[in-house]
């Protein structure tokens, strides 16, 4: 069974190598990544018949489906001053960061109904790539929960992680690492 799979792969491999060497100009076939129809920011007052996600408040609060976030205008400057920083390998929100969380929650409470918030989680250089991608998402979720606790509407807050892909300080010191371990807030408005 295993051997036949390997043989199959090797035959394909040889075929591919002839393509690569025989006609080098021929591009590898590639289709566009399939886009998805964007949905509107869910209105909690309207039941759209969406399948309810399996929420468990003790573990986390489900993220609303607002469609592809690239369908929104991104304003990264509006809340840049309120970026929240984390301890090493931690998702806990330090007491000194509470004011930033409250400021972001207050912004959302007074924002127009079609404004959503993207919370981004980032990590420092330490830790492997996928581990950091998971940790960054955990940080974003931690902030989302804190924003909901501070009075913001969770149905307008989504998350994403960049792991260690978007470090803002490439230095090797703890001071550099500390700047990279952060959550950022991006205001989303309809295009």
């Amino acid at each position: 069974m295993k051997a036949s799979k390997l043989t199959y792969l090797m035959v394909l491999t040889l075929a591919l190598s002839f393509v690569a060497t025989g006609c080098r100009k021929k591009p590898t076939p590639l289709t566009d990544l399939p886009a998805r129809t964007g949905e509107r920011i869910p209105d909690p007052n309207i039941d759209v018949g969406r399948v309810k996600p399996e929420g468990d408040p003790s573990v986390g609060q489900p993220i609303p489906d607002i469609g592809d976030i690239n369908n929104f205008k991104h304003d990264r400057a509006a809340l840049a001053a309120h970026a929240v920083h984390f301890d090493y390998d931690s998702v806990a929100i330090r007491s000194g960061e509470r004011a930033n969380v409250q400021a972001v929650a207050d912004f959302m409470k007074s924002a127009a109904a079609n404004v959503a918030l993207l919370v981004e989680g980032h990590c420092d250089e330490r830790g492997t790539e996928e581990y950091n991608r998971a940790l960054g998402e955990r940080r974003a979720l931690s902030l989302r929960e804190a924003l909901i606790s501070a009075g913001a509407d969770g149905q307008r807050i989504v998350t994403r992680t960049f792991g260690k892909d978007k470090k803002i300080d490439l230095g090797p010191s703890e001071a550099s690492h500390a700047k990279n371990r952060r959550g950022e807030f991006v205001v989303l408005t309809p295009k």
Partner: protein
Amino acid sequence: MPLAWSADTIVVVGESGWLHQPPTPVSISGFSGEADEVIRFDLTVQGFTNVPPDVAQYLLSGSNNGNLTGHATDKNNKSSLVNKSYTGATLRRQAHAFVDDFLTAIGRKGIGGTKIAFKADKGSSGEIYISDFDGGGAQAITSDGVIVAAPEWVTGRMALYYTSYKFGNADIFRHDLGTGKRTGVARHPGSNISPAPSSDGSKVAMILSKDGAVDLYVADADGSNVKRLTKTREDDSSPCWSPNGEWICFATKINERRSLCKVAASGGEVQRIPTSGISNPSEPDWSPDGKWIVFTSQMGGFDICVVPASGGTATVLVSGEDPSWGPNSRTVVYARRQGGRRVLSLLDVPTKQTKDVSRISGSNSQPSWAK
């Protein structure tokens, strides 16, 4: 006295013995240029070392004027193992085929015709590449100009799963390399990361955050019938499958300690896989023969480590991260730091011999070896 004597000369053949083997001596002669390089490379990363003929166990000789002719003999019993002239394809491929024929003759499984996938980062974006296992013939299979991550082959198929940020969030796609057709597998709210197809290709394990936690899920190959396997506030990462499809191994945090764990693919209790002697394990990969789990530990720097699949004492092998087993359950491809970027290397686990994979520009990481 006889007891002490026998204890000194016992050859350890158990699992821990497999991790500490001297390279097998071979003598390579008669080849030149690229063919010679390929033969030496392939033998090094499969546990052989080139020595003078008088101390070699196997003699590999031949020529490559035009096509390659190769002979392999067992020096101890003088038997001929390979005696063959190769035609077609490239000289490179003929050299790989000769080493594979030699390995088949001594009861092993060669890797000369196998492929790897990896990502190459350039600035703030990257693309997914595939190449021969030694880095030859590398070609980009994406051209989206966005962050990509975690390519994983489907066993026995020219198909990959990977993460792309094309639409803003981390989403999981399946890419058929024959047709170029790409389909969305996990496009849920939040992050959809670390896809891992089961070895029969029927299921995909992945890390999703749609329900408000960073947990492990399993779905059918196309992403349908999503089932949640863990429900914790910790960040689960990097799932991989046991070759029989029964277990999914992943990294998480238990009682504030980073650990490797496994859970039945059909659901059930999460069990810790002990990795004594190391800390901060992540990025596990289960060997195709089912015996071992190779992973990355972080203790200051990053180290490639291996532990019996049932858990036990972990062995540190070499500096590096994100290991992926070859189909021979012996050689591992991994990423290592070189200056400010990463390069891919191959490690022969029993002998700890390493060779760098030929590099393409940018930082190369997250290799996956086709099985």
